[in-house]
């Protein structure tokens, strides 16, 4: 059977042979329907809110007088509202939706009392809403990745536990047998996140640690939220969707074991590289740099595993909305991680630290890898949850092209602009600003790059709106789209007379 055929037989919901499996999964999909729909809808709404703040903050950075007299939208608050809406609103809801759904399917566990999940999820979203409003109205903490006022933390932590416990319970009562790599990642992440969050809240806000121990705690948290929460959830989604859509197993079981444990071992030491040159003991920084470089191991291992699984199936990847986004995400993971390891080297860091390069790198990881992967996950998951197909292939195309070109443009702008900014920062003869026009200054060199970042932001916004419209049409749309013509693909089927 050619890969293409096997691809279609896997995706086609009307295929007969594996009925019992399908029935089991379909029952799980049905049980997970309400909670997953709640998390997905909230995630997409937060995505739009976060995008709006992103655009505002981005424009403000090159045109500071834009909305300049609204205190609640001053740059520091708008960018923090953007970050927290994206991190705790979009990303966490997407993780809850995709992560728990994948976990439920892999464990084949019966999910009872799904309403609890809905209640906990509602409280999580209320908490984030209060937090973001808090940031805008003067509760901003100026602690990176923990900007929301500390008073929302108990609510978030509590609803998190109520949500995460479902993942753990599913695993506890899973169908006996092989445990798949996605399950390790999800289970690990479900335990890692609360531990990070509670420690960081305690040592920074409740009982502040002495001096720069706070900063170390801050970056231990901030970096690990990416590495031990979003990354494993993203990888779990890739590991689940890729073989599922392609209809072939993961290339190497051994490599996935190695990838998981080396990630768990090295990533959590790496965060100190955000403080290179800073007022903390140098041995800590060195430990962080070593760990950052060691991250090459899990990244290479995972990249080989993904590549060898997908290789030879370019056409299937191109047809499937899920795989287009997932493969984009997987490739970005490799690239962003290499950049990350490289940026941790002192000689490189002395240029990139404190510049837009770091901002570019953050978007490389959280957007080009994590967010794209979650888009792919949602494209795969929602049709199975709703038993409907995506109404418009065109809207998916608009979504894909706008966000992939947009993020590509943003990464180029911020990396190149940031690198120039870093070189100029290290040259004391170049001032930030100058009263005379025509003098080379750091800011005059940076502005065009910041401006092109805003343009890329507009593209990304268009993509997000297309995604939102497609999703809404799917949820409220007429039942006619229900399995009408098979799955929505981006390229016409080939050689099947269709």
């Amino acid at each position, binding site marked *: 059977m050619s890969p293409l055929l096997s691809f279609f037989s896997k995706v086609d919901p009307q295929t007969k042979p594996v009925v019992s499996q399908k029935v089991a999964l379909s029952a799980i999909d049905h049980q997970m329907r309400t909670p997953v729909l709640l998390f997905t809808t909230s995630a997409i709404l937060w995505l739009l809110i976060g995008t709006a703040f992103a655009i505002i903050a981005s424009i403000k*950075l*090159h045109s*500071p*007088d834009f909305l*300049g*007299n*609204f*205190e609640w939208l*001053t740059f*520091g*608050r708008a*960018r*923090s509202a953007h970050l927290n809406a994206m991190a705790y609103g979009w990303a966490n809801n997407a993780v809850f939706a995709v992560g728990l759904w994948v976990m439920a399917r892999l464990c084949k566990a019966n999910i009872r009392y799904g309403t609890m999940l809905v209640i906990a999820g509602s409280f999580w979203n209320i908490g984030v809403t209060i937090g973001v409003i808090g940031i805008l109205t003067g509760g*901003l903490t*100026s*602690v*990176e990745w923990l900007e929301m006022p500390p008073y929302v933390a108990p609510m978030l932590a509590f609803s998190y536990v109520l949500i995460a416990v479902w993942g753990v319970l599913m695993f506890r009562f899973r169908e006996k047998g092989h445990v798949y790599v996605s399950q390790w990642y999800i289970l690990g992440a479900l335990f*890692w996140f609360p*531990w990070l969050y509670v*420690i960081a809240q305690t*040592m*920074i806000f409740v009982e*502040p*640690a*002495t*001096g*720069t*121990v706070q*900063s*170390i*705690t801050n970056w*231990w948290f901030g970096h690990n939220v990416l590495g*031990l929460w979003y990354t494993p959830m993203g990888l779990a989604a890739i590991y689940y969707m890729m073989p599922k859509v392609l209809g072939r197993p993961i290339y190497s079981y051994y490599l996935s074991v190695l990838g998981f444990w080396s990630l*768990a*071992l090295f990533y*959590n*030491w790496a965060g100190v590289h955000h403080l290179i*040159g800073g*007022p*903390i*003991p140098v041995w*800590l920084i060195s*430990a*962080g740099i070593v760990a950052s470089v060691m991250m090459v191991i899990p990244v290479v291992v995972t990249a080989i595993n993904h590549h060898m699984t997908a290789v030879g199936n370019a056409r299937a990847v191109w047809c499937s909305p899920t795989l287009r986004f997932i493969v984009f995400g997987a490739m970005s993971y490799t690239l962003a991680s290499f950049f990350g390891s490289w940026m941790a080297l002192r000689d490189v860091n*002395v240029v990139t*630290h*404190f*510049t*837009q390069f*770091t*901002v570019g790198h953050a978007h490389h990881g959280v957007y080009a890898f994590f967010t794209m992967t979650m888009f792919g996950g949602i494209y795969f998951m929602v049709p199975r949850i709703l038993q409907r197909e995506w109404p418009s292939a065109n809207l998916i195309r608009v979504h894909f092209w706008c966000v992939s070109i947009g993020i590509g443009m943003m990464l180029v702008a911020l990396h190149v602009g940031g690198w120039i900014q870093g070189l100029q*920062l290290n040259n*004391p003869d170049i001032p*930030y*600003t*100058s009263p005379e026009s025509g003098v080379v*200054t750091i*800011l*005059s060199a*940076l502005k065009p790059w910041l401006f092109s970042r805003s343009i890329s932001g507009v593209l990304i916004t268009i993509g997000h709106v297309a995604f939102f419209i497609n999703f809404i049409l799917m949820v409220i749309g007429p039942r006619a789209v229900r399995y009408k013509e098979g799955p929505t693909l981006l390229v016409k089927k080939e050689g099947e007379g269709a």
Partner: protein
Amino acid sequence: MLAFSFTGLILSSQIQFGDLKPIALEEGEMPMPQARVGLAQQGKEIYIDQGCIYCHSQQVRRKGFGADWERGWGDRQSVPRDYILQERVLLGTSRTGPDLMAIGDRQPSADWHHLHLFNPQITSPGSIMPPFRYLYRTQKIGDAPSPNALNIPDDFPLDQPEPGYEIVPTDRADQLVEYLLSLKLDYELPESRFAE
């Protein structure tokens, strides 16, 4: 796994330098650093809730690593002891604007800071710092102009108040400027002396 790094990074640094105390360079001198009090401490809250940290760091790297020293951001490297009395440490990871560890030494004029906060273009043309006009208010001139009224140059007609009115700092602006003026690195510590 996470417990290892928590122990290795956080607990061990707490043990290594969590009990640092202010120290005098020579006997009889004032132990440094000193706690920030009063207006300046209130101003720090403004600095925090406006999110200044997202463009301004507060750390000076050693001479030879970057150009912090050459730019006049501090005469010496900042070290853990400099931060021990701060309830919220604002090291920052972005230098879209200059470092502010020693802005009080570098720019001791309150008038300059007020004009700069009101509209950064007045003092630093081409700056991308947002204006903080909302920390100032326009009021009718009483019997005599207020001593703290902003003296906005003529080439900023849009920022000029109506005739008979003046622009003065609110309490928050005064606190914020007081905080900025209190940011100094004019003392030495045994482990960090002024670089030559």
